[in-house]
């Protein structure tokens, strides 16, 4: 075995000043140590290191990773004021070496991190870690070899800062508590021939709390923060294997297993993570395990757009994650279970691997994108050029190249009723850039000139995914769609370019504010699909047909979008939003070659629209009948749907503005084209807008809708007498009753109450739409060949609509 060549102290250019003295141990520390006396060491630290360089350059591959301008000292003046720590060292007769440490306020600062040819030109920015607290480290021996290590850490007043180009993203008011128990560090065989460092972790607990996240170099103001985060996670039976040698030449390779300790889920939140603004989003009672094999760390060179980089990649990451309860503002959505397998995969002769390259600087800075014909033809180049004009090729930041290939499934459980998103495959690649900017560099000139923000650039991000459909109750059950009604495409391919700004502070106090320009090109989205030959046992025979939106270009601009969490749930206020969706062809059949219905162009322009998302569904209701309880409802000829207490409710208000310049709400359907868009004959619903019912000026109500999503048992009646598609016999009007697992079923003419308890699970959508007034100025016929326009209708007004609907979605049997 050959460990990677470390050159850790290659270039120590600064100075290191420490002062140490021996002190006696205090009583509290001594109490945990038996039979020995110890020594105490006080250290005043003022450390300055010019740079530390790690290199895996072996002459044929690899490069340097440099950490520069490293300082350790007091947070008040890291360059000149010492940080104090006290360490009590003892040797126990049975437990081994104890080091009981007390850290007074200390700052660890890395001035820059850079790679390869970037070194000296640009970096990932400056990173600062402030902390104070205690650590008790116990190191003993174990049999047959190795070290037995336990550690208990309690840090308070922790802050982290990431600074690029003088602008800082800060997390403060943090606490970190962790307990590592009886970890075994051992050098041993990790496969037939390779020796590595193996760390067995029988138990590890960590609780992290982040009080504020903001864009200031000084302490955050809680009212202009993102909010607070906290988590508590416990692991058992976990292991890390580390060996020398990377994917290319020198480097580091790791295998890892992590398993949640689900015994902590027996009471309270167990393993959880939470975000709190005015109220809380919580992921509680988490369990599952993840295995990572062949994770490698190398220094890569000359990636086409980001240059030299840190290269990370894994052969496989597979596992499961169950979130036992997801809640918003105390209202439960239900449980979510994910299984995932990130492994290499080939699609259309292209190999997709799971890797991430990380480079310093902001790739694409200062570019005009004139060479990207897709972007230029779509007219998006100027927006992206504007976003990247705020930085240049010397700017600090982080540039990422990501490539992935994933298969997965997800099970959402609402009040004990599972609903499965079956057989997901996703893959793609693309670039992301991250840097912190000052307010005067915003794409929105109306923003504060002083408040900093996180700038996220997304470039040439090619996304592909598909899933088979939904299954109720169990994966052995029949495939169905239903995603159409949730606005989810079951099969999508698109390229994403975007410039997004994220600020701290929401509409009220803490929260998040977004501005951005998002561009989707080369898009193909399935609206609905069927998979032919799905159940013949041979996947290679599968062929999807459906209704596809082909040649999609989607331009989406949003300003001053705020996100808050309050007692009513997640609140999104959309500020101003304008968008254009161009669908080249609505295809029936094959996604690329199916018969086309023509083109669609939809433009939207909204201000002050809102979206509210909360836990809890529609509760109980009588469908197709009347009555306030099950017996009355069933007696009236209807059926009782009990949505339980869990579920999801999404309420929205869409305020459609009248046309302003090029911004408008309209929908155009075009056929008989001689070329692309605007070469044929089109019907246009022109200047669609809402108002409050009595004139064209008041516009505060918009289109308001509330949709609740539940998984619940519903009545399904047989449509025809005879065998159904699964060979089950019954008469028209008989009710489908399952065996209780949702698998096999029979048709029963007069089901008992016991039978009705075994009705099939369904996706139940309960919706209410209200409109005071929705206007369409004109319905026009556009003759692009001659340039003439005819008016078909001179106006349409929809007033006083209050429509409630309940829809249950089950497979076709």
């Amino acid at each position, binding site marked *: 075995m050959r460990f990677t060549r470390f050159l850790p102290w290659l270039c120590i250019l600064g100075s290191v000043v420490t002062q140490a003295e021996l002190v006696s141990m205090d009583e509290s520390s001594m109490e945990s140590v038996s039979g020995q006396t110890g020594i105490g060491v006080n250290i005043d630290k003022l450390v300055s290191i010019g740079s530390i360089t790690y290199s895996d350059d072996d002459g044929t591959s690899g490069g340097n990773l440099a950490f520069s301008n490293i300082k350790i000292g007091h947070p008040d003046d890291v360059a000149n004021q010492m940080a104090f720590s006290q360490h009590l060292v003892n040797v126990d007769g049975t437990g081994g070496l104890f080091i009981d440490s007390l850290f007074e306020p200390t700052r660890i600062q890395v001035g820059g991190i850079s790679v390869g040819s970037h070194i000296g030109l640009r970096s990932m920015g400056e990173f600062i870690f402030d902390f104070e607290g205690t650590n008790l480290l116990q190191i003993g021996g174990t049999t047959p070899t190795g070290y037995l290590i336990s550690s208990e850490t309690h840090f308070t007043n922790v802050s982290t800062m990431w600074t690029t180009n003088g602008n800082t993203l800060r997390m403060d008011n943090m606490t970190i508590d962790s307990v590592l128990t009886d970890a075994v560090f051992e050098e041993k065989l990790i496969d037939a021939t390779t020796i590595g460092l193996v760390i067995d972790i029988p138990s590890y607990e960590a609780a992290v709390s982040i009080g504020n996240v903001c864009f200031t170099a000084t302490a955050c103001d809680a009212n202009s923060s993102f909010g607070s985060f906290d988590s508590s996670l416990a692991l058992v039976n976990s292991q890390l294997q580390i060996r020398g040698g990377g994917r290319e030449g020198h480097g580091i390779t790791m295998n890892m297993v992590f398993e949640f300790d689900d015994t902590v889920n027996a009471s309270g939140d167990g393993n959880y993570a939470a975000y709190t603004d005015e109220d809380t989003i919580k992921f509680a009672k988490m369990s599952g395990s993840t295995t990572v094999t062949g994770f490698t760390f190398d220094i890569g060179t000359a990636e086409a757009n980001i240059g030299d980089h840190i290269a990370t990649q894994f052969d496989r990451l597979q596992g499961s994650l169950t979130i036992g309860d997801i809640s918003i503002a105390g209202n439960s959505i239900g449980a979510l279970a994910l299984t995932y397998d990130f492994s290499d995969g080939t699609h259309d002769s292209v190999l997709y691997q799971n890797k991430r390259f990380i480079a310093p600087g902001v790739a694409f800075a200062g570019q005009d994108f004139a060479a990207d014909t897709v972007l230029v033809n779509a007219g998006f180049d100027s927006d992206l050029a504007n976003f990247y004009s705020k930085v240049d090729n010397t700017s600090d930041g982080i540039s990422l190249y990501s490539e992935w290939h994933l298969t997965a499934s997800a099970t959402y459980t609402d009040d004990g009723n599972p609903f499965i998103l079956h057989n997901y495959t996703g893959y793609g690649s693309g670039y992301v850039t991250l840097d912190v900017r000052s307010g005067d560099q915003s794409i929105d000139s109306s923003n504060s000139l002083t408040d900093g923000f996180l700038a996220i650039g997304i470039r040439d991000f090619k996304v592909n995914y598909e899933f088979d459909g939904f299954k109720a109750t169990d994966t052995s059950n*029949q*495939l*169905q*769609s239903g995603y*159409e009604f*949730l*606005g989810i495409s079951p099969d999508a391919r698109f390229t994403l370019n975007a410039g997004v700004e994220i600020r701290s502070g929401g509409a009220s106090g803490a929260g998040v504010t977004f501005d951005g320009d998002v561009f989707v090109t080369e898009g193909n989205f399935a609206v*609905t*699909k*069927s*998979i*032919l030959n*799905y159940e013949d046992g041979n996947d290679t025979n599968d062929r999807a*047909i459906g*209704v596809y939106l082909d040649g999609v270009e989607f331009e989406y601009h949003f300003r001053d979008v705020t996100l808050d969490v309050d007692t009513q749930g997640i609140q999104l206020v959309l500020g101003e939003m304008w968008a254009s969706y161009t669908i080249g062809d*609505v295809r*029936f059949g*094959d996604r690329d070659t199916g*018969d086309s219905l023509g*083109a*669609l162009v*939809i433009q939207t322009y909204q201000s002050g629209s809102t979206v509210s998302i909360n836990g809890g569904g529609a509760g109980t209701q009588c*469908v*197709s009948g009347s009555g306030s309880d099950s017996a009355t409802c069933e007696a009236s000829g209807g059926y009782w749907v009990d949505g339980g207490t869990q579920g999801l409710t999404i309420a929205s208000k*869409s305020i459609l503005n009248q046309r302003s310049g090029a911004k408008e709400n309209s929908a155009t*359907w075009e*056929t008989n*084209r001689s070329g692309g868009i605007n070469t044929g004959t089109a019907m246009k619903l022109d200047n669609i807008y809402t108002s*409050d*019912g*009595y004139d064209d000026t008041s516009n505060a109500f918009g289109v308001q809708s509330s949709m609740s999503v539940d998984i619940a048992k519903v*009545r*399904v009646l047989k*449509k*025809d007498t*005879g*065998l*159904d*598609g699964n060979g089950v016999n019954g008469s*028209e*009007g008989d009710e489908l009753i399952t065996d209780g697992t949702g698998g096999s079923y029979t048709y029963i003419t007069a089901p008992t109450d016991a039978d009705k308890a075994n009705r099939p699970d369904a996706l139940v959508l309960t919706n209410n739409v*209200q*409109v005071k*007034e929705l206007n369409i100025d004109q319905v026009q016929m556009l003759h692009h060949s001659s340039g003439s326009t005819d008016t078909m209708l*001179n*106006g*349409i*007004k929809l*007033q*006083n609509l*209050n*429509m*409630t*609907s*309940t*829809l249950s979605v*089950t*497979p*076709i*049997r």
Partner: protein
Amino acid sequence: MRSNLLILLLLVPTYSLALEAMTEDALESVSGQNGVQLSGELTFNENGGPLLSSDVGNVDPDGAGAMIATWGTCDEKIAGSVDRCGARLAVELNDNGGWVAWDELTGSVSFEGLTLRTREITTTDSFGGDETSADGKAVLEIGLPSQVKFKNFAYDVVTSSTGRPTDTGYSQQTRYGIEFNGTVNLEGNLLVFPTGAP
């Protein structure tokens, strides 16, 4: 995106439609593919819409009598204090001309067994011989529900001098009114597919 899809579905049926009876062969081919069976209920203005009698601008049509406003709840309409509580869809055919409206829409419609899926037409289908020329064509198949129940489903077809019933100079003539109660039996499928030049 959801709003896009809804608009798309509204547009699709206007293009090309056909009705067919579903054969046993066709039923057997349904298994294991995809698609959905839908059951549900639509209710319009069960007790009125979002326009309230207390709204500014919600005027009494003639300013006399017990009526206090044009729009209000259905209870207020029954009590005679407002003129209307249903939904209204008005269309102006000619510039500065009159309006045709689907007015005072209220009531509910429920159905069980509506199916929706995409499939390919094959020569085993029966379209009076047309299935041969359409062999292999993909269609959106809407399987009609066996029964559709109407409960107090009512509307008027009217002609109106203005788009809004609160506009100055408003007058309206009801051409006819409909109220449905009962059950309609439906059978067959609606096939939607593109034809012509896109």
